[in-house]
């Protein structure tokens, strides 16, 4: 099986989807000729021509608005926001339009689009290249929201998202584009070629939307997380000798509630972990879900470990990022409770 980085896996997913369905079109800023600033669409224009993969003017609302219109015509656009931090001009099109088109027209029109965006920090990008805005999407009725953590899932989920009949927001934590980041920024980067999830099958396969993955089985406590922090949680568990069960949620909406309940019922302890700011983050939703569904199994309070409620600071990136130390400490506290 070929080993791929997450960038290569995303590129390959585009290839497969475009090969299999000529309604799939791909566009965005620097996406066509150049192949994207993270190179996720490299080679698509060359292979499929500039009617299928093209550059857009710098106007995110036009990119998503046009994608909705193309979808209404019958195409399947998969568009890129250069950074999640730059999706705000498109937010009206996403929230008021794409998300609700099916409902408001009683199924007369639909918007089967995918909006991809690199998210998260850990690359010294400062406040406008580091954000994790997933909760701004999960809060909106009518949007599916995916956050990927590895090449295998990224390919399978992106193909599933493109084939899905509803709008899907597809977040790609840029810190894990090239390797599974363990949370220690001062250590050498481990490439995906050294990780089993870097093995990506050729051709078509999907990872269904709405299914979580047990990243690491364990019995001491459950960690509910997604994206970069899946790997950070694993580091923390190994460093502290905690037998944590790490659930990579993969899709936040629709949420795999069964996987969550099954794990927390087994361990009785739960940590919720994300890089986005704490207040009104997706962790609050997870915490409420666990409380509602697993209350009688819980042996300790649910604990959230998240980004602080500040903008993502450039120089203090590693004080902001919920790294293995903070996560490990939370694990010990939850076990001691």
């Amino acid at each position, binding site marked *: 099986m070929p080993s791929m980085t997450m960038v290569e896996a995303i590129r390959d997913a585009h290839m497969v989807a475009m090969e299999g369905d000529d309604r799939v079109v791909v566009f965005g800023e620097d996406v066509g000729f150049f192949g994207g600033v993270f190179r996720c669409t490299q080679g698509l224009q060359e292979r499929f021509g500039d009617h299928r993969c093209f550059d857009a003017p*710098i106007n995110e609302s036009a990119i998503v608005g046009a994608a909705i219109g193309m979808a209404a015509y019958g195409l399947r656009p998969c568009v890129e926001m250069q950074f999640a931090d730059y999706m705000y001009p498109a937010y009206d099109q996403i929230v008021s339009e794409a998300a609700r088109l099916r409902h408001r027209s009683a199924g007369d029109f639909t918007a089967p689009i995918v909006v991809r965006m690199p998210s998260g920090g850990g690359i010294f990008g400062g406040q406008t290249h580091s954000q994790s805005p997933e909760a701004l999407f999960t809060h909106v009725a009518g949007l599916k929201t995916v956050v990927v953590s590895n090449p295998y899932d990224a390919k399978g989920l992106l193909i599933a998202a493109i084939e899905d009949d509803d709008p899907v927001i597809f977040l790609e934590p840029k810190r894990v584009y090239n390797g599974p980041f363990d949370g220690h920024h001062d250590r050498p980067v481990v490439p995906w070629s050294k990780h089993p999830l870097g093995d990506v099958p050729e051709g078509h396969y999907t990872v269904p939307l709405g299914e979580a993955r047990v990243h690491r089985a364990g019995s001491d406590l459950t960690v509910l997380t997604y994206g970069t922090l899946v790997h950070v949680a694993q580091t923390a568990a190994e460093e502290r000798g905690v037998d944590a069960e790490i659930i990579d949620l993969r899709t936040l909406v629709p949420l795999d509630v069964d996987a969550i309940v099954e794990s927390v019922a087994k361990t009785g302890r739960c940590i919720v972990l994300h890089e986005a700011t704490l207040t009104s983050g997706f962790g609050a939703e997870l915490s409420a879900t666990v409380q509602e569904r697993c209350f009688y199994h819980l042996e300790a309070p649910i604990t959230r470990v998240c980004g602080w409620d500040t903008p993502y600071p450039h120089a203090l990136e590693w004080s902001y990022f919920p790294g293995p130390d903070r996560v490990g400490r939370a694990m010990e506290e939850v076990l001691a409770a």
Partner: protein
Amino acid sequence: MKKPELDEKVERVALMRKQLVRVLDDDGQAVGEWVPDLSVDDKIAGLRDMMTVRTFDARMLRAHRQGKISFYMQALGEEAIACGQQRALRPGDMHFPTYRQQGLLIAAGYPIVQMMNQILSNEEDPLKGRQLPVLYSAKSHGFFSISGNLATQYPQAVGWAMASAMRGDTAIASAWIGEGASAENDFHAALVMASTYQAPVILNIVNNHWAISTPEDFARGASATFADRGYGFSIPAIRVDGNDYLATYAASQWAAERARANLGPTLLEWITLRRGAHSTSDDPSVYRPDHESEQFPLADPIDRLRQHLTALGAWDDDRHESLQREITAEIETALAEADSHGSVKSGAVPGPATMFDDVFAELPRHLREQRGQVGE
């Protein structure tokens, strides 16, 4: 080219959006109606500003290669525009810049060591390590906080100008944007506000022909020029040779005087070329034609002003080289000082607790609690 009266009817300047205002001819002579009233000393000051920007940029790029800083963006080839306009405006006016107008700060005499402290994100960084390198803020020097989000500053500049007018103030605002980002909604939003309220604002579009990997026509569409954008909003719009320091000064001064005389907004499209990479994260060899810089018809702004001063008999190679040595030394001294305050790479940065300051005017309870946890 004809220089219109300040209150010339917009229809009568309409054609200027297709033309090109220039002052310096190919021999370095200042010719035509747009020749600005600048002394030799003013021109030498302009030359010095541009050379300082270029030397500063080159040194910061080297610092990036040396692993001292995390990121940098240079203005190579575009120095005249910000430097010229800064000298044409007055203290009290407010610029709303992009990341490529370091010339505004340098020409305003902002301390170079402070710029470096920001870039290094060190303990003396005026922005406390919060912002990506080059996203400066300097109210004291008429320089609005730079956003990473393109085009947002454009309507803000119009609002600042409207407020100045509402208060009977004479200060004006100047909005800056790259030609690529002029495709954003906020650009058009700003034009409609400026036109409706006749705000005292200069609307600059720096057309350096590239937006990362996309050539200018993606943002321009089927229009012939970016200055065309002004026409639909009845905003007088002129295209200017952005590599001609004297033209940058003259056109900026014309637009500023129109604003001060309460004659409304002016749109200026500056023709120039982004000679370097977009940023230190960019590799233009993948998308740019070879030899583009050499084939660009507008010559280098520093060379052109130098040639002009030489033609006036006010400059020679010795003076030029000695000025260059002086600037280089100034920059090395500043860097040595900034370096002594640490950097994002050395880890000598503001303490983690400072991250919670300035989220709000006063620290609310939840942030107080989080600040208590961060040090643990």
